[in-house]
Structures are given as structure tokens and as C-alpha cells.
């Protein structure tokens, strides 16, 4: 009993430190990638004792700045709600990490440990629910600040979430029809089997349209530039106008955390999670003959590495998208959500159903 609690606690600590470290690195990646895309160098001056390391200390400098700024609460705002909003926003983003599998089970002695914080059989639904709840942070933050612009930002956030959240859910229906379970580790395990004997059964191969819709809706979920209507830097300063210091920092971090989690989710659902093609618990078995047998620990390391690499790739892709596209206008976002993504996800569901019946 005590051992179980200890294992869970260690898993939570490891998971959160993984997420927060990646968040810090992602702020650096955001600066550097935008710079390289625009033929610049990017932030490279932050140094410790003259050591610069490509500006990798920039996130630390940013964090110190955020923490030492004055934490100002506007006098006519609702103090309690104003304080709780960034925490809500951050909490509902981070909690979704619980259901994401980092690797297969490992066995130490007689204990079987899943490399996943909580193994729940409603994993997928849980993640969708928590993502939807995250919008409360924005709405409450916008309302409690008692400022017209923050309220506008919050309302825009609400309008945006009803435009794309339906598509986000519907794009996964096709997957749910194919996969045997809603539990994410089961989904990943299923993706290890082969199609026609040589193609890995990754979600992106079975559900290309679903992947496409999910990626766009996921980009909207992160509230970053092509879909940053709640923020809208250039017109209304957005739902966090009245926030300063680390409370603003939490809102900012939520965006980055959501980028990582959307990447992790796309990886898990569509790109085989921790699966490496043709890697089985005892080593590689290639369909064209030839086996490479490996120690189970090496297999586990390869799996975790594979998961991390895929997440890193999607983080890169999402940051690239953020620095490529201009912002959607309000009505264009509605059009995209209601007139393109939702009909396309219906087409996807019907097509998947037909194929499942016919085959």
C-alpha cells in the first residue's frame, strides 16, 4: 500500500518536472525558432559567468523577472476570482498529463509499474473534459478583472471554444470506432500491430482526415497565434490585460503547456505514442525477415525516447505554425470551425463507418 503511494508520488513528480522543464525549453525554442525562420539569431545574451550556451539561460532570466514583478490586483476587481483564474487555467492544462503514457510497463522485482501516472479506462474522455474546463480560467479571468477588454477577450475565448471543441471531439470519434479502448495505453498498444503485414497501424494511417482536423482544432486549443482571439494583442489586449507578475506568467505558461500536451496527445493518438516501428518487447522483428534481440531495459529506453522525439517534433511544428500564419478574424474562425471542420469530421465518421461495415 505504502509502496503504491510512493510509486504514484514519484510518477507525479517526474511527470510534472518533465512537463515544466519542457515548458521552459519551449519558451527558448519559441524565441530561437521564430528568429531562425525570420533569418535572425534570436535571444543569445543571457549568460551565467559569461557562459551563453545559445541563450539557453533566457528562460531562467524570464522566470526571475516574472517572479520579482509587482503582483497588482486592480482595485475594482473581484479579488478572489482574479487570483484563482490563472491557477484554474494552469491546473486544467497540467492535469491532462495524468492520462498520457510515456512508455510500456516496466517490471521491477514483482512490481509492475505502468509508465503513466494514472491508468484510467476513460483516459481520452478525461483529457477532452479537462481541456474544455481550461476555458473557465480565461472566462473567469476576463470577468473578474472588471475591464471591458478582458471581458471581450473572455467572451471571444468562449465563442472560440464552442467553434472548435465540437470538431475536436468529433475528429476522435473515428478513432474510437477503430481502437478497442478509451484507455490511452491500450490505444498505443493497438497501434503496434501491423497493417498488411508491414505498415505500422498508426492512427495517422488509419485516420488521416481525423488527424488533420485534430491538429487544427488542437492548435485552436492552445490559443496561440492563428487562433489567438482571446488574446488578440493588436486590438484588445486580451483576457490577461489586468494581470502582472507570475499570475500573467501562469497564463503564459498555460499556452506552452498546452502546446506540449497537444503534441503529446497527437503523438499518442495518431503517431503510435511510445511505439517504435517493428519494436516488440524482446527486440526488433522486421517483416522482411531479420531480428535484433534487445534487453528489455533498452527497449523501454527506446520507447520513452521515441515518445519524446515525436512530442518534440510536434512542438516544433506547432511553433512553426505560430510563426507562419497571421491571426484569424473572428468570423473566419467561426466559418472554419462550423463550416469546414465539423462537416469534415462528419464525413470522416461516415467514411470510417462505411469502411468498417464493408471490410
Amino acid at each position, binding site marked *: 500500500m505504502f509502496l503504491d503511494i510512493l510509486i504514484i508520488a514519484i510518477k507525479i513528480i517526474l511527470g510534472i518536472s518533465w512537463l515544466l522543464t519542457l515548458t521552459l525549453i519551449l519558451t527558448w525554442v519559441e524565441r530561437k*525558432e521564430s*528568429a*531562425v*525562420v*525570420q*533569418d*535572425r*539569431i534570436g535571444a543569445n545574451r543571457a549568460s551565467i559567468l559569461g557562459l551563453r550556451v545559445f541563450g539557453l539561460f533566457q528562460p531562467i532570466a524570464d522566470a526571475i523577472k516574472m517572479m520579482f514583478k509587482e503582483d497588482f490586483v486592480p482595485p475594482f476587481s473581484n479579488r478572489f476570482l482574479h487570483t484563482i483564474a490563472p491557477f484554474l487555467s494552469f491546473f486544467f492544462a497540467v492535469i491532462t498529463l495524468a492520462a498520457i503514457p510515456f512508455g510500456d510497463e516496466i517490471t521491477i522485482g514483482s512490481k509492475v509499474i505502468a509508465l503513466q501516472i494514472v491508468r484510467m479506462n476513460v483516459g481520452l474522455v478525461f483529457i477532452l473534459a479537462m481541456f474544455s474546463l481550461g476555458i473557465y480560467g480565461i472566462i473567469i479571468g476576463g470577468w473578474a478583472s472588471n475591464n471591458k477588454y478582458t471581458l471581450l477577450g473572455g467572451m471571444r475565448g468562449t465563442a472560440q471554444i464552442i467553434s472548435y471543441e465540437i470538431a475536436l471531439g468529433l475528429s476522435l470519434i473515428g478513432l474510437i470506432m477503430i481502437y478497442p479502448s478509451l484507455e490511452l495505453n491500450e490505444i498505443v498498444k493497438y497501434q503496434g500491430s501491423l497493417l498488411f503485414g508491414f505498415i505500422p497501424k498508426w492512427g495517422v494511417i488509419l485516420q488521416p482526415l481525423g488527424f488533420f482536423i485534430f491538429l487544427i482544432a488542437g492548435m485552436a486549443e492552445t490559443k496561440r497565434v492563428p487562433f489567438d482571439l482571446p488574446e488578440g494583442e493588436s486590438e484588445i489586449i486580451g483576457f490577461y490585460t489586468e494581470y502582472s507578475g507570475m499570475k500573467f506568467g501562469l497564463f503564459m505558461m498555460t499556452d506552452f503547456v498546452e502546446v506540449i500536451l497537444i503534441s503529446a496527445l497527437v503523438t499518442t493518438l495518431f503517431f503510435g505514442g511510445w511505439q517504435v516501428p517493428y519494436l516488440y518487447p524482446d527486440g526488433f522483428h522486421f517483416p522482411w525477415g531479420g531480428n535484433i534481440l534487445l534487453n528489455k531495459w533498452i527497449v523501454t529506453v527506446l520507447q520513452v525516447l521515441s515518445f519524446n522525439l515525436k512530442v518534440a517534433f510536434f512542438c516544433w511544428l506547432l511553433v*512553426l*505554425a505560430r*510563426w*507562419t*500564419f497571421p491571426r484569424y478574424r473572428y468570423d473566419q474562425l467561426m*466559418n*472554419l470551425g462550423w*463550416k*469546414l471542420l465539423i*462537416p469534415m469530421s462528419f464525413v470522416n465518421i461516415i467514411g470510417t463507418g462505411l469502411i468498417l461495415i464493408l471490410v
Partner: protein
Amino acid sequence: MIKSLVFLLEFLKGLWITAKHFWINIFFNFLKLIGFNIRDRGSVTIQYPEEKKEIARRHRSLHRILTREDGSPRCVACMLCMTVCPSECIYIEAEEDPNPEIQKRPSKFIIDLSRCCFCGFCVEACPEDALRMDTNIVELGEYNREKLIYDLNRLVRISK
């Protein structure tokens, strides 16, 4: 719906362009990192305090007053530069020069750089070729305004 699909195609094109920039620049930056000497590829940034851009030959920088062979300033206090100056940053007080061929010389010659707009009219106006703006000194920032007021001695000293 068809229109939105066309938009999506354009979006993919945009992603392709930025990705191309990204990987080409990463490639050249990597070459630079491992010691290849590639100048104009990878990034257009000039890292200012360490690297400086070469100043153009005709660039108008800090003023200087030229001297005669005996070391006295060439200025004859004709007031032309003071008259032409659009921002009225030059102030001259004349006095008699002991040499009858020169007759006048400045006792005070002050350029207030906090007002100067570096138009170069004073250089154009000078009949004695006493004033030039070719020192290539452009880092003129100071912490207080008094230091931006250049008097005759200082302007002559720059020239040496």
C-alpha cells in the same frame, strides 16, 4: 467549404516556406558553429557591440574643426555655419586675430549635439573648409546633456 479548403492549401504552402527557411538557416548556422567561414548566410544579424557595420564613406558623423599648419583652427568666424544651421545648434563668438591676413578668429565655437540633426549644411556652408563631419564617430551617447555640448578645444582635439 471549397474556399476554406483552398485557404488550407495556401496555409500548407506558407508552412513549407517557413520550414524551408528554418532548415536552410539551421544548416548554415551549424556550418558556422563548426568553424566554416560563411558570412552572409544563415542570419542577417550584426551583433552590434562586438561586430560593427562598416560606415559609408560619405556618412555624416561627429564634427571636427581642421587646423592650419601652425595648429590654430582654420575658422575665421564668418558665421555662415551658424546662419545656415536649421536646428540652431552652433554658437560662435568672434574676436580679433593678431595676424592681419586672417583678421577674425572664434573665441567661442560651440556645437550643441543634443540639438544637432546631422544635416551637414554647416560643412557645405564653410568657405574655409574648417568644419568637416568625417570622423566616423557615431557612438555619441552620454549620460547628461552638458557632455553633449562640444566647445572649440574639444572639436579641434577630435581632429588630431
